């Protein structure tokens, strides 16, 4: 059972389907070939996320895959999507999503996660995330300036 969640809580009525449905999440190559007005695309760790640029205005969902929970390339993909490409749509963490990486995902601009790990689902439902609200790096999520030095932030 895959649980979908974002900072507001569980996601109901998610429009995205598997490959056979009417709103499939496509591979990068398939997305680049697609004429659909609204595209969902999954970025694998070895993909170059910047290739989405020409179709970005039609992309409504980018799923960034963590095939192993410790494959950290998706953190860079999300960062580039937000900071380099200026992407404003939904970024979803998929794959081996575990509780302790979710705060980091949120900080790089991943808005939602798809989770199968039961203890993670429980804690997300309780809205009890193990993050730290003080950051030593500028962030893409809303923060206030952290006191003292330019690189610090506090999550709001």
């Amino acid at each position, binding site marked *: 059972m895959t649980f979908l969640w974002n900072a507001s809580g569980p996601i109901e009525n998610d429009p995205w389907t598997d490959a056979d449905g009417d709103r499939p999440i496509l591979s990068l190559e398939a997305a680049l070939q697609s004429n659909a007005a609204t595209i969902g695309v999954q970025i694998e*760790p070895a993909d170059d996320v910047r290739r989405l640029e020409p179709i970005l205005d039609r992309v409504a969902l980018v799923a960034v895959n963590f095939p192993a929970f410790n494959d*950290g390339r998706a*953190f*860079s993909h999300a960062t580039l999507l937000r900071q380099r490409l200026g992407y404003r749509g939904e970024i979803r963490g998929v794959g081996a999503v575990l509780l*302790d990486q979710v705060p980091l995902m949120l900080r790089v601009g991943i808005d939602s996660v798809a989770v199968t790990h039961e203890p993670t689902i429980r804690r997300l439902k309780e809205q009890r995330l193990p993050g730290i609200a003080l950051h030593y790096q500028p962030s893409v999520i809303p923060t206030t300036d952290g*006191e*003292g030095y*330019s*690189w610090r932030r506090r999550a709001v």
Partner: protein
Amino acid sequence: MYRYDEFDRDFVAGRVAQFRDQVERRLKGEISEDAFKPLRLMNGVYLQLHAYMLRIAIPYGTLSSRQLRMLAHIARKYDRGYGHFTTRQNIQFNWPKLADVPDILADLASVEMHSIQTSGNCIRNVTADHFAGAAADEVADPRPYAEILRQWSSIHPEFSFLPRKFKIAITAAENDRAAIQTHDIGLHLKKNAAGEIGFGVYVGGGQGRTPMVAKLIRDFLPEKHLLSYITAIMRVYNLHGRRDNKFKARIKILVHETGVEELTRQIDAEWEHLKDTNLTLPEADVAAITAYFAPPELKDRAEGWGQLAAWKKADPDFARWVQQNVRPHRHPDYGMVTISLKPIGGIPGDASDAQMDAVADLADEFALGEIRVTHEQNLVLPHVALADLEPLYRGLVAHGLATANSGLITDIIACPGLDYCALANARSIPVAQEISTRFGAPERQAEIGELKIKISGCINACGHHHVGHIGILGVEKKGGELYQITLGGSADEHTSIGEIVGRGFEPERITDAIETIVDTYLAIRTSPDEIFLDCYRRVGAEPFRSALYGAAQAA
């Protein structure tokens, strides 16, 4: 030194609470060991042969006496009464209980210490010259920049799951005492013609299975671009570093396989987008952090000159200790004192709780309360008046801390090895002890002069054997231990990887082999002023091979 403000304190407190929660979930089985392992590693908790090991961060090797006393307290309360100082300027405890670690971290937090990112596939402790802020040849103190990098790299959301560990070192003198060319990123602080501070940036150094010397990819990076440029390097590494093979995952392999020109082009292309963003360092921030490292007020103590001469005349042991362990300070009335943690026949780098307390007291009395940890597993008191050297020395003698061997053959670097470490193939500490005992006589050490022996118990090279003048690598062969010797390594500004001399030596023969090498050197050196490393670079491996294996054949 740097002092936490409220933000830093709240952050570390948050980290302690986070780890406490993670330990609880682990003990309840809500996190598997596989998922927990990177979390505990990012809090410095290893599992070794006999017990857990906790590696505590000592940022750029700088400690206050108060902090050192806390380390003594932790050794007593939670461990077996001693700790081990490491080749990355950190400290390790060998017997903590996992269940106690959150409390240990809370105690550390009370003195502005932590164990954040001392392990794991993230950015590790940023190390620096242990004589920073005191050495006469320094362009500027590198530690403010190490502190900026420390903060910026702490729980960086993009770079917490890198392909592999990432180590940064920074030096600020032509004589590189921080071994920057053996690091993933090495920074050489310098000034341009206009007197502005910037960095030579080296990338792709490292030891382990495939030792490599870092390449200079940018000759002068202006100070304000430090964070943006490092971000560019880290992003390219995070995206393109290999993740298919743990032994090919460091950035040195990426440099090697991509080619340094092409990789530099990729880094510079990424940097173009980052160059003038919110990662630019404001001068005011640099100035504010630099203020924490302002040189201490050092009173003139010219009476020390005469006193020192008299003491040296009266006590040859003291004279020898000054000669070997005290180096000139920027202020002529002061010296930089190395406290040897290499007693003859002892365990390199270890200190008992009583010794830590003693050093803290001596630091308060004679050294403005500041201590440094070196990557050669010794301690340093960087600011000691010459007029205080003799009473300091007496204090050190009383606690077995006055061995006059800094830089000499018995000042051995050794990893914990198979006595402790789950990664090891062979023991390293007994080898160090035996070599130390064999060469322990002061006259013999003085005769031999500067000779850096470094011993690793496995290919991970935590003992830095690749850059030892004599390196010893312990391997496993046919169920037993075997020791391979390398010669001619160096970790300074002329970094070189040692050359394997031939087939390895059994434990009972390794010390004799070292003695053969030393005797060969003594016989062929041009004068006592030609140190072993220079002699080796002049004559090559051949004379040593012949001596070890016979003239007819080598390996």
